[in-house]
């Protein structure tokens, strides 16, 4: 999994899932269409007009596959709709100095790569992409590396080997669990005798 793209800066700390996708848009029974409501309250005025000044709406950010956000991205509700909205908008990786646990898991389960970097690195990335919107960020999952060649930035990021395997080789965690049926039933029998 390699991503090479321009990016959207959102240097706000503690962006919660109610901002990513407000609760009134959680009423669908499928996973489609959430991208159009991503950051709805920040992207649109009360009358539904586009807020031109918001980064996601700027023409120079169109087609970006990377979102770079402030610390503690995705805090709050467990709604996976937040991950569906991010993915639905075309984002393939989110960069921050820290992710809330549940969002991070939801991101992995939807093929979005959460890239955790040092706070100082995050600052440098935000500065670079804010100054020059055409700046490209390269994310390489196999090498666990994020880089911006223009500013000589290169940093490794952490990911559990299991999650990495799932993303790289398309291992489906749910199928993995379903295939553990014998072990799960053996566990149930063991507990029943205790």
């Amino acid at each position, binding site marked *: 999994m390699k991503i090479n793209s321009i990016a959207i800066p959102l240097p*706000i*700390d*503690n962006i*919660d899932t*109610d*901002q990513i996708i*407000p*609760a*009134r848009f*959680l*009423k*669908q*029974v*499928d*996973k489609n269409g959430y991208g159009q409501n991503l950051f709805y*309250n920040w992207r649109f005025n*009360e009358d539904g007009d586009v807020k031109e000044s918001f980064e996601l709406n700027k023409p120079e950010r169109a087609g970006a596959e990377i979102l770079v956000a402030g*610390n*503690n991205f995705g*805090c*709050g*509700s*467990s*709604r*996976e*709709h937040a*991950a569906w909205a991010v993915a639905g908008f075309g984002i393939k990786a989110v960069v921050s100095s*820290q992710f*809330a*646990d*549940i969002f991070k*898991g*939801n991101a992995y*389960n*939807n093929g979005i790569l959460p890239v955790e970097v040092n706070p100082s690195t995050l600052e440098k990335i935000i500065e670079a992409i804010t100054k020059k919107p055409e700046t490209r960020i390269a994310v390489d999952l196999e090498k666990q590396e994020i880089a911006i060649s223009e500013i000589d930035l290169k940093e490794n990021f952490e990911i*559990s*080997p*299991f999650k990495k395997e799932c993303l790289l080789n398309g291992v489906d*965690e*749910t*199928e*993995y*669990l*379903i295939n*553990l*049926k014998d*072990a*799960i039933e053996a*566990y*149930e029998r063991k*507990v029943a005798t*205790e």
Partner: protein
Amino acid sequence: MSNTLFDNIWDRHVVKSISEGLDVIYIDQHFIHEVTSPQAFDGVRKRGVGVFRPSRCLATADHNVPTINQSEPIKDPESAKQVASLEKNCKEYGIELYSMGHENQGIVHIIGPDLGITQPGMTIVCGDSHTSTHGAFGAIAFGIGTSQVEQVLASQCLVLNRPKTLKIEVNGSLKPGVTAKDVILYIISQLGTEGATGYFVEYAGDVFRNFSMDERMTVCNMSIEMGARGGMVGIDQTTIDYVTERASISDKKINNWLALNSSEDSQFDRVIYFEGENISPMVTCGTAPDTGINLNAKIGSSKHLSDKALKYMKFDSADLISEQKIDYVFIGSCTNGRIEDLRAVAKIVEGKTKADHVNVWVVPGSMKVRAQAVEEGLDKIFAAAGFEFREPGCSACLAMNDDKIPAGSLCVSTSNRNFEGRQGPGARTILASPLTAAASAITGKVTNPTTIMEFA
């Protein structure tokens, strides 16, 4: 060196260890609601596997339901579709469902404990971050995403990273007017919204020992607001009494539960101490739950208050929070929608009436809580005070139904989140205890309950 309560429960639920710190964990109880489950049911249907252990699942409709005229069909077609979808899925897979109108219906984190389903030593999940509530019973309980809901439906298991353990000890006694809600708002204000990320919390010390189960649930409920995976309280006589009043439990099982507890020499990854005497009635002043300040403080005294939040809240940092005129009061939610919360509100408002300009909604956490409140005559006290006593649901905590706070209006709320737009687009939320909410309803401005309460 002995294990912590968390370690003891975790270790007993490992089906398979994948690698260091990564385990397949068996889930004892799965709670389900209408918003985060439809796609998961579709998933197991498409895979052709169905639901592995339907008897370990329990569903209810809570997030979308109206809180008036629940006997009528839901007017919002999308909400109606989600509830209908839950009903269809539960029927198809043989899952017990308490939908609208059922005597056991209510907010998922209120009914699980109250029906005796939530028990010590369990692993409990739900597609809802406030699943941490159930940790009050000495259980590992936490919120999950919909993909994980699908995994639990399909296998009754999850692949989980073992979190670190954090003990938060609060000792001493609490001042009059200080409730469980104030304690947790205080802790969150000290740690920050990301202060416990990566940890599972155990709340220890006199203050939690002396709390009732309802109070412990209020505390554990908000663990997620400081980033924690969940929060729990050790198992003691208070826990046992609550559970055995609701379920038949053998002595052997009780002894097994008590043996799970942490002991004096249990090793936590991190320990934090607070003193109960230092805690005052708290309210938030910003747009994150860590912006709690005491009710006599200036708005600017919150160390977590950003300029963005100040602007959204339309506050001046030099003003006192207690001078703020309010428009709405919401009493309810999985944080404070239990019978003890309603009793506390009734006690403070009895013989008083709300300020004319304030709308007050009291939304019980479940049909059972509502029936109990009526039996005790609390409904009459609310009516006399001008409070609207509604039907159960999540309501204005997240405003998925019609219970929205209008843009710009200021609401004192006993719920758990004050994020921008949480209670409706443009709504401004102040988180508070039921006592503070009730006191504020009466005066029409943010009010320290100790200024109008009489203490025995």
